[in-house]
């Protein structure tokens, strides 16, 4: 670690937690302005030690895997920290919420818990009995109900002897159900990455974090739990479902707790901004914000502009909307927009024709140029290659798969050697994301599997979806553009499915489809083969609330057999029941 400035000179995560001042505030779990709980680091340490004792009493020890299935909150965090204190290896799995399809949840829970082969599974007292059968249990697995317990004296608690190279915890790759991949990370790797992150974020003891991100996701776990825990910063937290029910609560919490940092997926910027007319600007004061970091989806400049336009009246300081490219496999951030200089992500305009035909970037100021927002500069200790389909390294400005090597990355997927061999080759992690490097900045343009290739031109579904979403009759964000391979033509064709805002609009479907077709041809110079307008709530959404591309694709093909003839694919109900995404 000689080249890293050590902001946090600890060798293990328990050491970092125990070094916090007892009186310093740590986490506030916020439900409403009259319903919240704040604990100090001192109280949190006692809670964690209480959970550690409970786990030890139940036979859990060094290097044992502990599965935690509890609602977002302080008790879950204490269970996680408690497992760390005894050198066990915790893994947080998604908790069932009312908006998750129970069948899909059961399937995911079963697969993931079986792969983890846990020594103990800790669920909260309200975890539904009928779901317990879906938690894998071996002969030696203990099923425990979490109970809040505090050790009388955290300082007297005997922390296990842990080496920096020991696995600290397992975090799962994105998504909430399906057979997710578990990434095992060592204490040393996590701490090394947090030191790097502190450097690029120019973190100070005055910072404080806001989050509604789930703790089973890397953004929620690393940026919004491990970082404040190790850096001894306050955290104001909500549950994802409670935030989605009340989007403006995010602004309320940032105002109340004077939060300086938050990580948000791109959809949040539009989702909150488009409800801005329901808010009274005097209610919120966002002047404390140092950075709202757009992360985990391709970054759209338009979404960030909308957010800034809506909330500068709430004193959101200029140049505070940042970007980041992150994943569980590299602990968290691969790149981060520069906090110095202009203080905002670099944006470039590129010739659309050249981009689509040659998959390369030529700067252009034409009206039809594509805009790309950088995901920032590589975090120190990280290297990136841009690789072509045939495995060649591409030059700056050419689009290919992003492969990453860092000094704090996964050793492999937990108990999945097969998946590890597929994704990690020669020490490089192949992300499945497409992007390019230019002038030292990394640009992420989409998922490799979502790219539509029409007659040799590269079309990104997001560009089509943005045009369709802008039509007043279409429900914003509920549009999916797909490439379906036409076996006769030997190329992909674009098929779009979009939800209308009001069912009544379907009476004018033909007219709307025509307008949309013209707009797509006008802006992108490609034609969609078919546009299907559907009533509200037709598109299948993922548990994160975003349109689920592969499941919607299957639904569309089932409802429109004419497309199956086009692609030569068939979809029966049996396949749809086991689909994951």
């Amino acid at each position: 670690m000689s080249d890293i400035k050590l902001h946090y000179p600890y060798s293990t995560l328990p050491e970092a937690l125990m070094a916090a001042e007892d009186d310093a505030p740590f986490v506030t779990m916020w439900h409403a302005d009259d319903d919240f709980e704040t604990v100090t680091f001192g109280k949190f340490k006692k809670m964690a030690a209480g959970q550690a004792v409970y786990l030890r009493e139940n036979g859990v020890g060094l290097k044992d895997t502990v599965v935690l299935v509890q609602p977002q909150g302080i008790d879950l965090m204490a269970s996680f920290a408690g497992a760390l204190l005894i050198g066990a290896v915790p893994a947080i799995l998604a908790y069932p919420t009312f908006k998750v399809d129970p069948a899909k949840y059961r399937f995911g829970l079963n697969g993931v818990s079986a792969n983890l082969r846990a020594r103990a599974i800790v669920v909260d007292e309200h975890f539904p009995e009928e779901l317990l059968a879906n938690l894998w249990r071996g002969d030696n697995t203990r099923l425990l109900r979490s109970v809040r317990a505090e050790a009388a004296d955290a300082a007297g608690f005997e922390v296990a002897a842990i080496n920096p190279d020991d696995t600290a915890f397992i975090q799962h790759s994105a998504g909430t159900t399906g057979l997710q991949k578990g990434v095992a990370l060592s204490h040393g790797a996590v701490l090394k990455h947090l030191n790097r992150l502190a450097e690029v974020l120019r973190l100070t003891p005055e910072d404080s974090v806001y989050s509604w991100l789930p703790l089973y996701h890397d953004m929620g776990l690393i940026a919004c739990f491990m970082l404040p825990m190790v850096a001894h910063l306050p955290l104001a937290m909500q549950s994802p479902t409670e935030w989605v029910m009340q989007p403006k609560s995010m602004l309320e919490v940032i105002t109340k707790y004077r939060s300086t940092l938050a990580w948000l997926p791109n959809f949040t910027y539009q989702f909150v901004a488009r409800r801005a007319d329901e808010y009274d600007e005097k209610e919120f004061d966002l002047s404390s914000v140092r950075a709202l970091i757009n992360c985990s989806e391709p970054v759209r400049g338009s979404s960030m502009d909308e957010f800034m336009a809506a909330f500068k009246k709430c004193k959101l300081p200029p140049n505070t909307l940042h970007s980041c490219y992150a994943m569980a496999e590299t602990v968290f951030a691969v790149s981060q927009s520069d906090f110095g200089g202009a203080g905002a992500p670099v944006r470039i305009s590129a010739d659309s024709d050249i981009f689509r035909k040659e998959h390369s970037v030529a700067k252009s100021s034409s009206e039809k140029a594509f805009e790309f927002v950088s995901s920032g500069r590589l975090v120190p200790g990280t290297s990136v290659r841009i690789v072509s389909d045939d495995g060649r390294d591409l030059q700056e400005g050419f689009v290919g798969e992003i492969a990453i090597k860092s000094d704090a990355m996964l050793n492999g997927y937990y108990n999945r050697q097969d998946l590890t061999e597929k994704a990690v080759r020669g020490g490089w992690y192949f992300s499945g994301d497409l992007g390019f490097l230019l002038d030292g900045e990394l640009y992420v343009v989409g998922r490799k599997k979502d790219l539509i290739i029409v007659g040799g031109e590269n079309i990104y579904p997001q560009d089509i979806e943005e045009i369709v979403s802008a039509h007043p009759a279409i429900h914003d964000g509920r549009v999916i553009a797909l490439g379906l391979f036409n076996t006769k033509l030997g190329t992909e064709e674009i098929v779009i499915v979009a939800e209308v805002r009001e069912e009544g609009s379907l009476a004018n479907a033909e007219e709307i489809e025509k307008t949309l077709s013209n707009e797509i041809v006008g802006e992108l110079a490609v034609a969609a083969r078919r546009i299907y307008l559907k009533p509200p709530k037709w598109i299948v959404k993922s548990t994160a609330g975003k349109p689920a591309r592969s499941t919607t694709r299957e639904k569309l093909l089932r409802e429109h057999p004419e497309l199956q003839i086009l692609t030569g694919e068939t979809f029966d109900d049996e396949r749809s029941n086991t689909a994951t995404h």
Partner: protein
Amino acid sequence: MNEATQQLINYIQSQVIRKKGVSIEADTPLVSSGLVDSLALVDVLAEVERVTKMRIPAGKVQPKDMDTINLMLATAARVGRARG
């Protein structure tokens, strides 16, 4: 049938199910029967909050708590807090 139940029946029939000829009652299974997509429950829960004038902490609501209108109202009574 009380007013809250009737309002929820009307809302779910007209705004969520949107199929002619489908009528539901207070104890009709909605999600487990496939009538209501579980993701539409965000809107349904917001309507339950509006109708009952309660704030319901979404983090404390399980799928089974939302399967019928009777269960939704029982859940509101159990975990809801009167709006201030």
